[in-house]
């Protein structure tokens, strides 16, 4: 349910006590719900994280939308359409969850369109070939699943519930992608080369999806304290690598990392250094597609404005006729 009412004002003295009680609830694994008292900093933190997550789902439709009309078969096209529709749904669940904290949908979209709010940098890379669609499902949705499963137990109730729903839907996204790549990797030499090329381009950006090392992630400490997150960026990234490398082996594709090797002692894969300069460059707006993505979102919003207004006017007119009758 939405937080329709403003939280009550409290004095500074009360505030300290409330904050202690809040942390005790978090520590006791009680979910925080919209109308519960929460520190203003927690509220802001959650709005920022949930809206960024929503924006990622929302912008994430664009690279794949690029291939709907060129999907090679009707089966692939139906799957791709269904996946993209799911991503729109994921954005909607998350925007609603953020709205329970007192922000509005319009405010969030404005912050996205102005560039103030961020979204996952992975969506600033282009989808050049059909193999990119398979690779996105396999790696990008695969990485998203690892991140999102970890968030199913996050402390804010509406966010956790949205994550549970989203996780249920993500599995097919990854599997349809893997099926595409399997077909290409076991196909003609040109098809296999296309799959390898896509893996070469998406592997490192996919690893970057888990965010900077925790030591370089200024928000990590407070996120752990509030149980917004429970596993470190590096731990989740390692889990993804360990899950994915055997899949690449199965496909007969080569992960583009000369330092990648199995470590018998740790029971994990060791992998090479991530180019964090590239990561920050793309976050700050200089990726290949940052401008395109924002332009597409802005114009979709602006071009649709008349529809939103007309629907409201129609609803008002219907109400008026009904009350006149």
């Amino acid at each position, binding site marked *: 349910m939405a937080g329709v009412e403003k939280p009550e004002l409290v004095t500074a003295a009360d505030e300290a006590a409330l904050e202690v009680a809040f942390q005790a609830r978090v520590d006791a694994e009680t979910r925080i719900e919209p109308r519960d008292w929460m520190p203003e900093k927690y509220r802001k933190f959650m709005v920022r994280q949930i809206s960024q997550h929503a924006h990622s789902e929302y912008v994430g439709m664009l690279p794949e939308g690029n291939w709907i009309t060129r999907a090679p078969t009707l089966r692939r096209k139906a799957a791709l359409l269904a996946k993209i529709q799911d991503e729109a*749904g994921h954005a909607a669940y998350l925007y609603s969850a953020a*709205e329970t904290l007192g922000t509005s*949908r319009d405010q969030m979209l404005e912050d996205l369109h102005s560039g103030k709010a961020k979204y996952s940098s992975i969506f600033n890379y282009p989808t050049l070939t059909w193999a990119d669609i398979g690779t996105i499902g396999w790696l990008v949705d695969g990485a998203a699943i690892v991140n999102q499963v970890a968030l199913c137990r996050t402390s804010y109730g509406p966010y956790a519930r949205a994550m549970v729903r989203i996780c249920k839907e993500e599995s097919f996204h990854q599997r349809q992608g893997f099926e595409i790549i399997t077909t290409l990797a076991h196909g003609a030499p040109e098809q296999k080369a296309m799959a390898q090329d896509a893996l070469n381009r998406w592997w490192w950006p996919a690893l970057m999806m888990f965010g900077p090392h925790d030591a370089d992630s200024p928000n990590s400490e407070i996120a752990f304290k509030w149980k917004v997150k429970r596993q470190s960026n590096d731990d989740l990234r390692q889990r993804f690598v360990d899950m994915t490398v055997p899949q690449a082996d199965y496909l007969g594709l080569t992960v583009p990392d000369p330092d990648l090797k199995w470590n018998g002692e740790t029971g994990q894969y060791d992998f090479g250094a991530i180019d964090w300069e590239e990561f920050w460059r793309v976050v700050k707006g200089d990726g290949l597609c940052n401008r395109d993505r924002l332009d597409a979102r802005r114009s979709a919003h602006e071009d649709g404005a008349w529809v939103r207004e007309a629907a409201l006017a129609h609803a008002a007119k219907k109400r008026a006729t009904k009350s006149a009758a």
Partner: protein
Amino acid sequence: MTTRKEWPLWEVFIRSRDGLHHKHAGSLHAPDAELAIQNARDLYTRRSEGVSIWVVPSAQITASEPADKDSLFDPAASKVYRHPTFYTIPEEVTNI
């Protein structure tokens, strides 16, 4: 600049199968009740999750205060005699 005139917020309740209660599924924006149901269909039943939908304007919902939780719900905790296990029945008596 776009004008700030949002579609109102609705709470969505879904009956997942005949014979079950409607259960809160989430919320969404829609200009009116009819489109709220359409949007709820697209948003919450893409995989046959429902056979019936209720939509309620979020502003119409009155909720209990979190601060009243203890005074509202604690009294029930001590009334164990409202549960069947409170009562002792001889072992040889069956079907009760």
